């Protein structure tokens, strides 16, 4: 490394200055999260008489247990569970149906293949935000308001993952399928024994992206979960603000905000490599 960088590397003051800029940048970017954390560890009076402290207080357990076990409309623990079910449902559901349909499109010639392909392709174009009213009516018609099915299904109706797997399957050497066919292996055996193990990294990378996508949904849960028991945490925070002139319970709300970001942050930070790969893959 030192050799390749040698010529253009800055030494001495330059390198410290660079670090200083970087640290400054990180501090600025990080400040909103830090402030939320501080607010989640102090008392309500400390916040409503500004300026609030910039260093954590001693109310950590009080605020977090108040949020987790009683919350405002519903315990935050319930909302966390709902979010988890929704995020996992979207990630796993989307991966399964996409693996199957990509396998069908790549490894078979069947009537209507191109029609189906284009059908799936078009779904790439239309985010759920654009078709909310009619989608809401469909879900309401099925009696799926306030249900996990209603939260999950409309969000797995998109084709990004199918495309990703199709691209990847096309790079699997033909010899493997050839050998499987000569051996008389049935297609599903080939799918299960060869294709799935080879796609492991892609599946994991996609899982990271889809989990965060599902966890961070806002508009859709806002529309279809009218029962607080079914609220997800990301949409539930807004519901914790009082209407009218009442003062918001900031420490509990901020503790909830921190709780809402912990699972996706853990996923992103601990699976950084996969995450970056998934990001690059899914935008390609």
């Amino acid at each position, binding site marked *: 490394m030192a050799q390749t*960088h040698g010529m253009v590397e800055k030494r001495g003051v330059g390198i410290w200055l660079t*670090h200083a800029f970087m640290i400054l940048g990180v501090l600025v970017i990080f400040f909103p999260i830090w402030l939320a954390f501080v607010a989640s560890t102090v008392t309500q009076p400390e916040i409503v008489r500004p300026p609030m402290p910039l260093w954590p207080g001693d109310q950590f357990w009080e605020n977090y247990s108040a949020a987790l076990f009683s919350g405002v409309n519903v315990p935050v623990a319930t909302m966390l569970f709902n979010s988890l079910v929704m995020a996992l449902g979207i990630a796993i559901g989307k991966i399964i149906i996409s693996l199957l*349909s990509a396998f069908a499109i790549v*490894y078979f010639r069947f009537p209507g293949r191109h029609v189906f392909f284009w059908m*799936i392709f078009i779904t*790439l174009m239309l985010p759920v935000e654009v078709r909310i009213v009619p989608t809401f009516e469909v879900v309401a018609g099925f009696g799926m308001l306030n249900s996990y099915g209603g939260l999950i299904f409309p969000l797995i*109706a998109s084709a990004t993952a199918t495309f990703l797997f199709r691209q990847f399957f096309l790079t699997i050497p033909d010899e493997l399928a050839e050998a499987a066919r000569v051996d008389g292996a049935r297609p599903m055996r080939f799918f299960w024994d060869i294709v799935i193990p080879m796609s492991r990294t892609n599946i994991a990378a996609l899982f990271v992206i889809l989990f965060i996508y599902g966890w961070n949904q806002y508009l859709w849960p806002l529309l279809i979960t009218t029962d607080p028991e079914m609220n997800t945490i990301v949409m539930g925070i807004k519901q914790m603000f009082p209407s009218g002139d009442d003062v918001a319970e900031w420490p509990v709300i901020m503790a909830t905000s921190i709780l809402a970001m912990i699972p996706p942050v853990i996923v992103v*930070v601990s699976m950084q490599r996969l995450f*970056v790969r998934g990001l690059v893959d899914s935008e390609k």
Partner: protein
Amino acid sequence: MEKRVTFRGWMLPLLLIAPQVLVSAVFFFYPAAQAIWQSLFIPDPFGLSSQFVGLGNFEFLLGDKFYRAAFVTTAVFSLLVTLCSMIPALFLAVIADRLIKGSGVYRTMLIWPYAVAPAVAGVLWLFMFNTRVGVVSWYLGQLGYDWNHVLNGGEAMGLVVVASAWGRISYNFLFFFAALQSVPRSVIEAAAIDGAHFWRRFFTIVLPLLSPTAFFLLVVNVVYAFFETFGVIHTITGGGPQQSTTILVYKVFSDGFVGQDLGSSSAQSVILLVVVGLLTVIQFKYVEKRVHY
């Protein structure tokens, strides 16, 4: 590109593709068709019957000053979000790229905001700028500046822009950083030998090499600002004050669900559909180029 080796049979593939086709048909095609169909009608106030008006809803929208204002707001908003997220990201990526040690630690810290949901980001920024308890608004007050995004449309816009751009800085940073790392060192060194100093090297060599990444991010960020910032706006301003932060997607929601004007809301969906279509075409045109390289 097609596989040379395929399996026989057509029952199995149809069975395999069925779940996706079913989900797409029920939750995608039917609602999308419904949106197009509804956009041609005006329902009566009781929702009992509706009258066919052809393109009446569209004509009304295009003549409606509120809708045109939402278009302008969306354009301003997306432009600002894109700039405010790309420029700091590029700056940070350039700095991180100069560091040999420690860039991994900084990267880990910088990707946090990406994981924070737009709606949660909205709550964090609302908290900092809250007119009663916000730390930043309090200090601004001490400096003699009276911050009030609840009444001041410009400040409201500024706040939703910053809150929306914040998480995107992480995303753009990752892409810029990866692109910078792949700039051949030999080219940079050759320029350095010729006596080109850092900023000159940056503007004449690095920036042109980054332009494909920058263009890609431009499109992706505009799409983000159009469709994924609903949570930020709903938590911070609710589209106000006086609709100054009502972007197109927000208007589909507020007209359709709050105002119960289904015809107009559907027509707006259809217009957005055309916009997404255009953006997707641009994106694919570009992606195709990148794949062929």
